[in-house]
Each structure stands twice: as structure tokens, then as C-alpha cells.
């Protein structure tokens, strides 16, 4: 437990990044095989069942120390965590002994059946052999309070560093069924089998941003288009009775989206689809933030699945029934997509909605200029005869972002930013009029010119209403045009919305604040499309 507790200490203090991966790699290298598989299980979010409540542990600690209950409570108030309070009020260990993690986990699992006195005896014996950090860990493990999150990608990178097994193979194994009670780390890092090689993701379709005009693509009759929604590009691999979902950077996300896995089980064997994973609520596409929250999670609960239901919008079929069809024209591949999806749960896996561009670019331009209710980020253009993996213009999927939205808003707060990494000297909070006052809507400093800086400085000097640390509340008279790429709903914000990618466009010199559009106007504009 000593090594594992040291690892936990390091992980708690290290921010994301390489440091964490090498700390994990060092641990997996030095820990015993059996401890390591338990650590892998705990860190990948498989929380052990609670065998004793934290309050029971507190009671035993109070009994052991002989401290009055109020003193324990006072200590808890200072520490803020019961597992740590218990660990620290106890006297120092009588004899420092190493308790292997695996041994402890196995014996504590067996405890369910044993009597309370036996459990107490066992815990107190352990407390007397461990230092404070190890006791915290132990208390959390037995009381079901172990919640340290390590991203699967960090775990697999660490294992790859030690074993050389490709991280995506490890990710797949981690996502598969295994049990720390019967499996070992050696088994987890066994040589790659031929079957495993076959479930690797293929190259993703080349997708690029079109910088020139739409007409640079040639004859519009050759092209199909679809809305570009916020989501994560995914390859779905149906292989050996399983469904694997890969991201472009070879992360295995199948365990995070069991709905899709279930739906994908009805697909023919040895088939690979490419698409976009997105949140879809009552037929309405969700935001990037929503899908990201699904991807960041470790445990998929019913509540998460209910609040952010996911859907795979299929864009292409790469392999069908064991046959590689990447080198047939896209419109033929699309037939496979449509026939495949016909037999799948359409709320989970559905073909993207594509339409002909038509005889000229007018319709595409209309989509881009927000001339209809849809509020996608832009459009994706696909050539009817394009190959998957080809390099000519027709083989590439072209994206074009829609024109940004704009709205005039008033400056409510000004914060000067000294951080050198920041692009501007100020962060401004912009607001709109709601029922009975201005409500903050967005905060940005992007797009401010030197001139704007001077203007804001003067405004702060003359019109500051109140100070909150580095923030100045100013008289709501300064108006700017803000441009943004979209709006998403947020219950955490007073306005109820967040603007996506907001930036400052221009100062509205003669703008009368009273004539500005209101928050309700902004909401109306966007809820219409949703």
C-alpha cells in the first residue's frame, strides 16, 4: 500500500500531462503484478463496494483515541474530510508494516460476511501499521469513498511506456471484461494477438476546412452536403461479437457510450463505420460541452445517460461484412450506410442527413448565411465519387463554417488582465437587458484594439460604480457589437445561456442602450431552431 499511496499523493498534486503518465508508469514498473492490477482497476474507476461506513470508522477512531466527540468534530471541521481526520487523530503506527494492496482488497471483500468486532479488530490492526497517507487511502477504500479519477488515456499511455504494447490495444483490453481478483497485470499486457490487430481503427476520412469560395470545388451537381454539428469523430468497429468505438487519437470510448454499443451489436460482423458522436435530445443536437461531459466521465450512470443521450451520426462505411469498400465511390458506399442503418435503432445510430447541393451554390450559401432555422456550426461537403483515403479535391470532405451571429451588448464589468499569456489587457463582461435589469451574458477580451483599450480605461476612470477586487462594475453605457458562433443552454449562468466563441467586433458609438435588443430576443432567436 506504500507505493500506491505515494502514487496517489503524486497524482493529487500533479496537473494533467506527462508528469502523471510517468508517475503511473513508475508505479506499474515497481509495484507487484497483483497490486498493479488492483491499482489499475481502482484508478480506472471500478470503485470497490463499501464494507464499512465512514461513520462506523469514525466511531472506532474515537473509541481508540479516547478523544471526546466534540474534539473529533472540531478536527473534522478543520480537515474537511472524515477519512483524513480519522487517519490523523490516531496515534502514530506502533509497527510500520507493508500491507500489499491486493491482499488488503481481497481480504476486505471477504469481510461482508464477518462480524463487526472482527472488522474493527482488522481495521485497527491495519491503522497501527500504516502512516497517515496510507490510512487515508485505506479508510477511503473500505468506506467506498475512493474517487480519484485517472483518465483511461493516461493509464494506457503509462502501460505502453512500460511494455511497448500499443496504447489502443491496451485501451481495448481495459474496456473489455476483466477482474482484478483473477487477472494480473502480466495478462493485461500480454502480446498482441492477431484478432486484436484486426479491431484497430483505420485511417479517418481526410476532412479539411475550405478557405476559398464554394465555387472553387467545381460543379455543384457533384456534391452533397450535410449540417456540421458539434460532435466527436468516431470509428465504430464491429468485430468478433464486440463493438469498439475509436476516436481519432485512438482512444477507446466504447465503455462511455453503452447505448451505442448495444445498438451496434445488431450490425453484421466485420464492419467499420465512420461518423460523429453527438448528444441528441428529442431529435435536437446537443452542444460540444454536452458531448464532452460524456467523454470526460468515468462511470456512466443512468442519470448521465438520461441527461445527455448520445447518437452516432454515420457519415461513411469503410468495411462491410469483411469487405474493404473504401475504394468504391462515396455514393455507392452511402447505399451500404443506408441499408445498414435501416435495421438499427435510429435513436442511437442513424445516417447523417444529406442533401444535393443542387445546380448552383445558392442553397449552400443560404445555409451558411443562417438563412434558415438550423443552427449548425457550418456545412460539410462530400463528392459523390470521392474515395476514402484519396488525395484529390473530390476525395476530401470539405467543411465551411457558417457566418457568425452578432448582437449589440453593453459593458457591465471590466477586469484588467496582467497575465502575459492573455491576448488583451481587459476582460469585459457584456450584458443584455432582462426583465428588471442587465444580466451578464458573456465575458471576453478577444478582438479589442489599442483604441478600445484607451476608451475602456477612460470609461472605467469616469464611470466605475463599484469595485470587486480587480473587477470594476461600470455604468452600462458602453456598447459593442459581439460576434459568436452559437448559443448553448446553461443552467449555471444567470442568463441561462452561454455564447460560443464570443469575440468583440466593433464599438457602437452612437448606440442608445435603451434601443438594444433584449435577452429574450436572443433566446427567441435561438430556441426557434432547437
Amino acid at each position, binding site marked *: 500500500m506504500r507505493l500506491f499511496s505515494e502514487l496517489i499523493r503524486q497524482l*493529487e*498534486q500533479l496537473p494533467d500531462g506527462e508528469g502523471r503518465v510517468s508517475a503511473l508508469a513508475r508505479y506499474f514498473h515497481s509495484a507487484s503484478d497483483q497490486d498493479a492490477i488492483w491499482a489499475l482497476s481502482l484508478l480506472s474507476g471500478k470503485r470497490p463496494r463499501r464494507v464499512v461506513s465512514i461513520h462506523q470508522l469514525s466511531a472506532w477512531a474515537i473509541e481508540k483515541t479516547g478523544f471526546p466527540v466534540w474534539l473529533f468534530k472540531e478536527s473534522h471541521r478543520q480537515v474537511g474530510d472524515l477519512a483524513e481526520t480519522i487517519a*490523523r*487523530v490516531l496515534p502514530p503506527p506502533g509497527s510500520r508494516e507493508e500491507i500489499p494492496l491486493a491482499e488488503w482488497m481481497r481480504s476486505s471483500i471477504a469481510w461482508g460476511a464477518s462480524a463487526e468486532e472482527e472488522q474493527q479488530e482488522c481495521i485497527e490492526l491495519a491503522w497501527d501499521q500504516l502512516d497517515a497517507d496510507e490510512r487515508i487511502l485505506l479508510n477511503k477504500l473500505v468506506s467506498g469513498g475512493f474517487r480519484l479519477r485517472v483518465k483511461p488515456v493516461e493509464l494506457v499511455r503509462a502501460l505502453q511506456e512500460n511494455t511497448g504494447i500499443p496504447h489502443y490495444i491496451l485501451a481495448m483490453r481495459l474496456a473489455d471484461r476483466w477482474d482484478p481478483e483473477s487477472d494480473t497485470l502480466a495478462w493485461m499486457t500480454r502480446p498482441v494477438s492477431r484478432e486484436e490487430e484486426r479491431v484497430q481503427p483505420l485511417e479517418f476520412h481526410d476532412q479539411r476546412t475550405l478557405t476559398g469560395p464554394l465555387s472553387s470545388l467545381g460543379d455543384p451537381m457533384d456534391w452533397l452536403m450535410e449540417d456540421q454539428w458539434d460532435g466527436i469523430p468516431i470509428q465504430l468497429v464491429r468485430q468478433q461479437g464486440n463493438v469498439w468505438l475509436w476516436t481519432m487519437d485512438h482512444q477507446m470510448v466504447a465503455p462511455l457510450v453503452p447505448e451505442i454499443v448495444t445498438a451496434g451489436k445488431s450490425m453484421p460482423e466485420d464492419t467499420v463505420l465512420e461518423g460523429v458522436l453527438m448528444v441528441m435530445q428529442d431529435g435536437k443536437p446537443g452542444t460540444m460541452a454536452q458531448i464532452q461531459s460524456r467523454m470526460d466521465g468515468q462511470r456512466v450512470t443512468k442519470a448521465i445517460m438520461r441527461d445527455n443521450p448520445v447518437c452516432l451520426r454515420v457519415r461513411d462505411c469503410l468495411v462491410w461484412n469483411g469487405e474493404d469498400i473504401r475504394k468504391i465511390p462515396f455514393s455507392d458506399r452511402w447505399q451500404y450506410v443506408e441499408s445498414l442503418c435501416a435495421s438499427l435503432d435510429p435513436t442511437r445510430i442513424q445516417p447523417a442527413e444529406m442533401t444535393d447541393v443542387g445546380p448552383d451554390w445558392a442553397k449552400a450559401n443560404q445555409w451558411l448565411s443562417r438563412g434558415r432555422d438550423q443552427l449548425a456550426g457550418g456545412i460539410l461537403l462530400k463528392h459523390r465519387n470521392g474515395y476514402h483515403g484519396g488525395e484529390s479535391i473530390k476525395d476530401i470532405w470539405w467543411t465551411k463554417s457558417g457566418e457568425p451571429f452578432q448582437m449589440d451588448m453593453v459593458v457591465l464589468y471590466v477586469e484588467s488582465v496582467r497575465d502575459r499569456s492573455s491576448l488583451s489587457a481587459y476582460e469585459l463582461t457584456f450584458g443584455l437587458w432582462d426583465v428588471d435589469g442587465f444580466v451578464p451574458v458573456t465575458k471576453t477580451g478577444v478582438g479589442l484594439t489599442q483604441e478600445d483599450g484607451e476608451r475602456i480605461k477612460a470609461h472605467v476612470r469616469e464611470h466605475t460604480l463599484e469595485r470587486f477586487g480587480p473587477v470594476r462594475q461600470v455604468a452600462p453605457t458602453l456598447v459593442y457589437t459581439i460576434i459568436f458562433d452559437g448559443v448553448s443552454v446553461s443552467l449555471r449562468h444567470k442568463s441561462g445561456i452561454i455564447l460560443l466563441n464570443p469575440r468583440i467586433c466593433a464599438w457602437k458609438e452612437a448606440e442608445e442602450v435603451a434601443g438594444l435588443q433584449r435577452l429574450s430576443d436572443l433566446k427567441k432567436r435561438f430556441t426557434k431552431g432547437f
Partner: protein
Amino acid sequence: MIMTVEKNRDLLVFSPKGIHCPIADVYIDPWRSVKKALITHGHSDHARPGHQTYVCTPLTASVLKHRLGQKIQVAELPFGQHITVNGVRISFHPAGHIPGSAQVRVEYRGEVWVVTGDYKLHGDPISEPFEPVPCHTMITESTFGLPIYQWSDPGIIIRDIHQWWRECQETDQLAVIHAYSLGKAQRLIAALDTHQGPVFTHKSIEPINELFRRDGLGLPPTIELNEFHQRKDLKGGLLIAPPSAMTSDWLQRFGPISDAMASGWMALRKGRFRQTADRGFALSDHADWPGLLTAIRESGAERVLVTHGFTTPFARYLREIGLDAQAVETRFLGEPAPDDQAGADAKNDQE
């Protein structure tokens, strides 16, 4: 429970200027200007400017002259000697907090009071070890007066520091420890193995090192950082800087760095998370919970007045184990409670 100490009968009273002995008309660590101030040690919350006469141990006297100016009037009172003022016998006894730090013993007609100042029972290589002083009434600090504060053996912490330093050397990062420039810095320096690499100091620390060396304390050689030092000059080294240097930019030119904070507040995970430092080492110059209880027991005091820190719960616990104990309101002593953030930061400075 917070009480006002009866002012008339007591040998020492809490006045708006600080702890006062009315018979001798001397104050102990006062925070407003007085005629005669007995100073336990040189930390700025105990040794303030503006008193007419300072009475302290010889080492503290050097520190005060360095910090408050050569012109202050100081009377040295070494350990083991005493002065008598209007029948009150006053002496200093080692407190173990930092080199030269003292507890103040005050005796009048057979009644003995001790003011501990800041103290610790764990040994360190340079401070005179804490000496239990028998007394009737003890005025003790309680900075860490909760049972959650139990220090690990300082030897283990020093070993961890060396281990971290080695990791920094292997990854070519400069190891930086933030420690208060008077006391904690020197305690660390004395414990560090300079065979592992050179030890650099911030300009606020080196003068104190010199002062201690002149007094015969065994500190290994250190190098004061100056504006000409480049990153390559510090390779494999360990730099000791005060906590106030933590957020400033000057360290960046030596980057990449790994920094650590050495303080008792690092004992709790909460303390470590609050810090921006990469590591926290729970190395304290204050008594922990068992230390406070041992000191009180060994003094034989029947009455205990508790200041600084977790005064209320600590005094309550002392009452429950049979002592006549009272908490003296901390703000009265010009010390913020450590459980608010600002207070914790301020204490870090002196810790």
C-alpha cells in the same frame, strides 16, 4: 470559551499593548510601543519596531539589530542568567523554535509564570533544545492545537526532501524550497547534505545565515543568488527562498523549476492543495498536539492560558483533562485565526 483574565491579582495580564507584568512594568512580545519589551524571538509578529528597550537573548539581539536597525537599544540576557526588576525575577529558557528563541520565566514572591512564545519539542540541528520550565501558570501558544497535527520524524521529512531534490536533478529542474528566511531556512540548510549539490539562497536569507555562522552555528556553505546567476550556474542545485518570492517572476529565468513549501500547514492535504507549490513538506517549527500536551505536563502548571491558534478547543480539552485552562482571544494578540485563508497565509510566513 473565551475569558478575560482578571487583571488585578495576576502577575501577568493581557493589556492592549501585549502581555504585561504590572509589578516590573515590562511587556512580553508587545505589539505597541512600550518602555521595556522582553522579546522571545525575532519573527516579525513577536519583535516589532518602536520599543525603547529590548531585552532578549544574545542571538535574538543580533537578529533584532539586523532587522530593526543597529540603533535600537538592546539589553542581552543569556540563557541561565536572570535580571530582577522591582522584585520580579526574569529569565529566558530555550524554546526550541529557532536559534536563540526563548520562553520567558517570571517569578515574584514564589509564584512562577512562563510565557512560552513559539516553541517546538522536536529537535533540529541548530536550535537550543526546548527546556521544560516548572511553573504555576503557563501562557502557551496553540498554533497546531488539534490532534490532527502530529509531526512525522523530521529525519524522514529531510530524507523525503533529499529524494525530491534527486528527482529534480534527474529531470533537470531547479529545486526550490520556500521557507521563512529566519529559522526555517537555516534549519533546512543545516540538515541538507551539500554533497548532493550546491545550496543557493535568496538575498533575504543569506544575511541571517552569516549572522548565525558568526555566532558559531554550524551551517554548511551556501551561495547567495545574484543577478548574474544564469540557469546553467544553478544546475543540480537547491534554492531556498522565502514564501513571498513564490509568486514573483524572478524565478522564471531559472526554469524549469519544481518548487516545494516547507511548513506545518502542509500536513493536511487541504494545505498542500491550497499551495501553488508542487510539493509540500510538513516541517514545522511549532509544537504539534502531542508536543503541546507534553510541554504543559512537564511544566507542572496548574493553570494554562492559551493564545495563538486553536485556542478555544485546545483550552476546552485541557479543562476536560483536569487543568484550569482558558483561551485568550487570539485577535487580542494581533494574530489571525489560522483557519481562515488569509490567516493561514500570514502564519505560513512565521511558521
